[in-house]
């Protein structure tokens, strides 16, 4: 792997930028692997990277039906935070946040992780009580956070209309200073480059269309382009398509796939140096380094795999943002897109073994998977490499839908889920 550095950059400049290497190979698949990861998004690539780097599993392949990072990894609003209410979720997302903090150094690849803080606004007395409760719960889990008053919120975000005459006045907010945003494509590319340099085969344009299962045990995957590829263990990390993958193995999941939209405005001068989220008016906004406002909100209500959404949802999203920032009403929107998110009834992921031996699923991240990318990859790799599930991942077993031990973050996390 060609290491990146400041001196390297100068050297390349002197060499007319002609000596850059490709960041990962484009190999043909081998006949069999120790672990096959289905899905080359951020979570899948991170899993492969940590398998090779931390857990010594070298014969790993990542199979991606399109191009890497072309699904939800490239379609989200890049917010990273860990201020979740319940212990299991807080531990998982905080594990991810701590990995984020050293990720650029670890990967020798700038993922542009910017800890600019996240505000979760409260607009009603009940919102503020919930915020107080959540921040206190965060303290007990060792996660930073503060409850801010209206004046403190106004001081942080001068452009926001915090006046008491609004229909949804800002009564305060929770503030997590270590939260922020990261460059989504760079995360996929950084993990791909890191994994590839450790010998992981990243195989793009390779669609999995079935599993080889003999006597309740997985032995390989069937692909459209390369036939059968043998595998000791298989990890499915296919987000919105997880239900389809499960059906190939004769399984059903407690998830439904929905379109989730996001949109960006044309680039404007710096106006917002943090992330503002509101559960009550249901929208969130930040400003990218390029200057465009990155805006998102809730899912489209109906099931869908179409990677596009409906106009009424865009309208509701913009209504929420304009309620908070009336001055944004004149900014033209540049682009809009949709991704397919796999929503669990309790808004928490499934990181789990299945009834098929050695077939694992990591799915159900719903609308909030990006923030967990390194943590999800790390705990899933640990689970795939070992005998038991990683202790951080264990509460996210699919069994919770039978035992009733749900991790009910729906609405509890103070987020637009």
């Amino acid at each position, binding site marked *: 792997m060609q290491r990146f550095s400041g001196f390297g950059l100068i050297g390349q400049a002197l060499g007319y930028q002609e000596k850059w290497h490709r960041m990962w190979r484009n190999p043909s698949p081998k006949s069999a692997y120790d672990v096959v990861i289905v899905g080359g998004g951020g979570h899948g690539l991170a899993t492969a990277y940590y398998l090779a780097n931390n857990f010594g599993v070298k014969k790993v392949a990542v199979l991606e039906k399109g191009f890497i990072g072309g699904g939800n990894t490239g379609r989200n609003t890049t917010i990273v935070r860990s201020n979740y209410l319940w212990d299991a979720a807080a531990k998982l997302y905080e594990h991810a946040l701590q990995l984020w903090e050293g990720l650029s150094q670890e990967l020798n690849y700038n993922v542009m992780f910017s800890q600019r803080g996240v505000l979760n606004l409260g607009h009603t007395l009940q919102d503020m009580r919930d915020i107080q409760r959540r921040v206190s719960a965060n303290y007990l889990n060792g996660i930073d956070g503060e409850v801010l008053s209206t004046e403190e919120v106004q001081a942080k975000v001068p452009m926001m209309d915090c006046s008491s005459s609004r229909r949804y006045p800002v009564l305060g907010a929770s503030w997590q200073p270590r939260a922020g945003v990261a460059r989504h494509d760079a995360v996929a590319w950084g993990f791909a480059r890191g994994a590839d340099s450790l010998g992981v085969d990243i195989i793009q344009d390779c669609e999995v269309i079935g599993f080889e299962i003999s006597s309740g045990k997985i032995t390989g995957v069937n692909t459209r382009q390369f036939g059968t590829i043998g595998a000791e263990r298989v990890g499915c990390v296919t987000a919105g398509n997880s239900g389809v993958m499960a059906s190939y193995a004769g399984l059903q999941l407690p*998830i*439904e796939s929905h379109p989730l939209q996001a949109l960006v405005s044309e680039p404007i001068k710096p106006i917002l140096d943090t992330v503002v989220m509101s559960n009550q008016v249901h929208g969130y906004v930040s400003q990218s380094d390029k200057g465009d406002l990155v805006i998102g909100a809730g899912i489209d209500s109906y*099931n869908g795999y179409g990677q596009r959404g409906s*106009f009424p949802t865009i309208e509701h999203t913009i209504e929420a943002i304009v309620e908070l920032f009336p001055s944004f009403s004149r900014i033209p929107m540049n682009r809009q897109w949709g991704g397919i998110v796999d929503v669990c*009834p309790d808004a928490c992921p499934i990181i789990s073994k299945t009834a098929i031996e050695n077939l694992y699923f990591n799915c159900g991240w719903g609308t909030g998977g990006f923030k967990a990318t390194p943590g999800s990859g790390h705990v899933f790799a640990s689970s795939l490499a070992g005998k038991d599930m990683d202790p951080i991942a264990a509460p996210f077993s699919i069994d919770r839908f039978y035992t009733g031990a749900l991790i009910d973050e729906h609405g509890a996390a103070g987020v637009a889920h």
Partner: protein
Amino acid sequence: MFLIFCPHCREYRSEEEFHYQGEAHLVRPQDPRSCSDEEWGNYLYFRTNPRGLHREMWSHSMGCGRFFNVVRNTETYEIKSTYLLEENSKDQKSKEIKSGNRTT
């Protein structure tokens, strides 16, 4: 943007008048207290989530307020048909609660 034919009003109306209510033909177990955890969990949480034709329930909440079923393609979003809850219920395979059809 969907134009949905409400079989009660017998009119095409815009998507915003309707609410999506999830998968259709879910059958609540006759006697919940005799269900195993697995049967009850399957009924509550596990869904078919198909990529393709999906039978789903909508309500005309800003119109007549009544429920009906829709057959829609989840990939193209094309609405194939809409029908009353009591229609077709015999030949639509009602979703039996299958045990054994689960991951662990």
